[in-house]
């Protein structure tokens, strides 16, 4: 995966050096920022051996919550995540079913709440009142800091290490004395919080957000985590891998355009990359 990204960068540097213009990189970073932050949270859930496909709907709900106050977004996200977490982690309902239900239910809840209308952002909210240029760099710096902090925490915070153990074997983790249910709930709640944060940082760029925001976001983020080398079965994955996964999947479309290919190839190539990641895991498992 690292090599795929390096190869893409090398081809671009040779064939389309304009790709590396600061403005282009900045726009790409802004376009992928929400995916990156959500993928940070999804990494935790996937490490713990679970899945959450409701993040796109959570994202829209959090965007609507900003209409009341900016801090309401992460709060709403954490509440959604906590609900998913209690259903999956405490009651042990299958997470694909629970989050399928919350994905659908939350999406229609937001349509009903807004009656389909766009939500106006509070006055002075845009760019946090900083102006476009500074605001843009602030967003990029904030998400980079978040990813760095998450990478550090996954290595050095004790409870974050539990995600690996729980995902590898819930039963072994339980016998080791790890509070397995609480760890699972925490993963979902943290993902909700981060989704709210992603909605907040994303909305800063606009004056209004739409109720259909975040459709397909869950697939992008899951794909990035998996392409980043995390095992969908849980227990394995890194923050660095996830960042590279977001970068590879998020830039491939723009890169194609710079190289003169049709944009219609984007999804096909993304699919091929995801499949390649799955095959890579298969080969690795066979070798071991």
């Amino acid at each position: 995966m690292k090599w795929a990204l390096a190869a893409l960068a090398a081809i671009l540097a040779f064939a389309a050096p304009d790709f590396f213009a600061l403005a282009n990189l900045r726009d790409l970073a802004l376009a992928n920022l929400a995916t990156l932050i959500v993928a940070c949270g999804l990494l935790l859930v996937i490490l713990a051996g679970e899945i959450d496909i409701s993040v796109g709907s959570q994202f829209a709900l959090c965007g609507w919550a900003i209409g009341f106050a900016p801090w309401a977004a992460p709060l709403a996200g954490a509440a959604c995540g906590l609900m998913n977490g209690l259903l999956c982690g405490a009651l042990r309902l299958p997470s694909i079913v629970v989050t399928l239900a919350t994905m659908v239910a939350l999406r229609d809840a937001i349509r009903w709440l807004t009656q389909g209308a766009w939500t106006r952002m509070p006055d002075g909210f845009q760019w946090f009142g900083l102006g476009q240029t500074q605001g843009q760099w602030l967003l990029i710096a904030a998400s980079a800091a978040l990813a760095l902090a998450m990478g550090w925490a996954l290595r050095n915070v004790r409870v974050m290490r539990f995600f690996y153990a729980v995902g590898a074997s819930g039963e072994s983790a339980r016998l080791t004395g790890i509070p397995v249910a609480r760890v699972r709930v925490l993963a979902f709640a943290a993902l909700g919080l981060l989704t709210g944060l992603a909605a907040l940082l994303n909305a800063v760029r606009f004056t209004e957000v739409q109720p259909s925001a975040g459709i397909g976001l869950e697939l992008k983020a899951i794909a990035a985590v998996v392409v980043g080398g995390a095992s969908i079965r849980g227990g394995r994955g890194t923050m660095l891998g996830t960042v590279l996964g977001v970068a590879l999947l998020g830039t491939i479309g723009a890169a194609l355009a710079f190289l003169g290919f049709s944009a219609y190839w984007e999804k096909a190539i993304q699919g091929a990359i995801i499949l390649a990641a799955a095959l890579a895991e298969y080969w690795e498992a066979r070798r071991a």
Partner: protein
Amino acid sequence: MIRAVDVSRSFGAIRALANVTFDAQPGEVHALVGENGAGKSTLIKILTGALEPDAGTVERAGAVAAVYQQPALFGELSVAENIALLTERDSRRWLVDWSMREANARRALSRIGAEIDPRRLANTLSLPEQQMVEIAKAVATDARTVIFDEPTASLPEADSARLFDVVAELKAQGRALIYISHRLEELFRIADRVTVLRDGRRIVTNAIGEVTRASLIGQMAGREVDTMVPARETKPGEVRLRAPGLEVRAGEIVGLAGLVGAGRTELARRLFAEDAAALVPEDRRRNGVIGPMPVSDNVGLAALKTFLVDRVAERRSAESFRERLAIKCAGVDAPVETLSGGNQQKVALARWLATNPGALILDEPTQGVDVGAKAEICRLIAGLADGGMAVLLISSELPELLGLCDRIAVMRRGAIVATFHRSEAEPSRILEAMLGAAA
């Protein structure tokens, strides 16, 4: 120190342990022996606290750790972290102190003389190395009692010798050790006392100096032969199943004895694939019947050869087997999971009988069924053989084999090492062959 007093435990109708008293003192190695199914695993689970006894008490001084034949480490985590997850289980720290973790792991590993880099991921370790890490976990948590459950079963000779050194070291450190092994000669090297379990009961506890290999085998095997089945007249026909050292003829019941891991199930699967015999697999819940599906579908599954299911014929066949095998169920529409263990086993049997096989392989057909159902299944098997079926019966219960089989073949390490005729089959001789020649 650890002591279990008068502990009993049942699983459903099966009594796994009955009034067993067992202890291990500091600085002592207490060996525990018995055939498959004698109750050793249940006793260990009760000693470690993984299982509660139905009756009786367990006193533990200090922590108890267990080292199993198959280590269960977190493969994606380092050796140091695998150890730390246990030692830090009551820790209130927020952050990981990696250098402390590594130092602790290094100290625990060096106390048992193991040279393993604590930073390595557990999935890069060999099996003996993983076992050393499991032992290091016990040392790091300062477990006062360490239980070894067949630790050498999958170890090469040289690594076994290393393990005995570690056992001696732990003993010298004043820990109480419990050691389970089928390799009896090991016990004479390392054990101080030995207890024999049979059928969930403690038969005897002796100082190791007072027993011999032969006396242990005699106590493990017991004397009783199952008389649940009346003696049969056998008229063997043509050979229906064939493997190196093994032939099963029509009308015959041949038993296959061996320790867990001797290769009996593998042989059964090979015969199933090559000789088109019907195989009723062990662990029926996982391999045998499909719980949520009705009895009729379960019976029809293997005989099904057409694209569309003939539901009427399937029902008729299920009803006839229900009568023939006396399957007790609310009806052939009842899900199999609502039946008792013995009746589930009969459904698994019916599925294969419905294919009209010439030979039948039964892998532990009476595992986990109560005594009454056991006798019924044994009579069923005898009846099938009388009707001209060639039967290969895999069982860990010697009395069952002795009572039912015309001949008993013994497997060890993947090969058949001995065959006994009904007239010459004696429990201790069969057990002797299962365990291997005395070293």
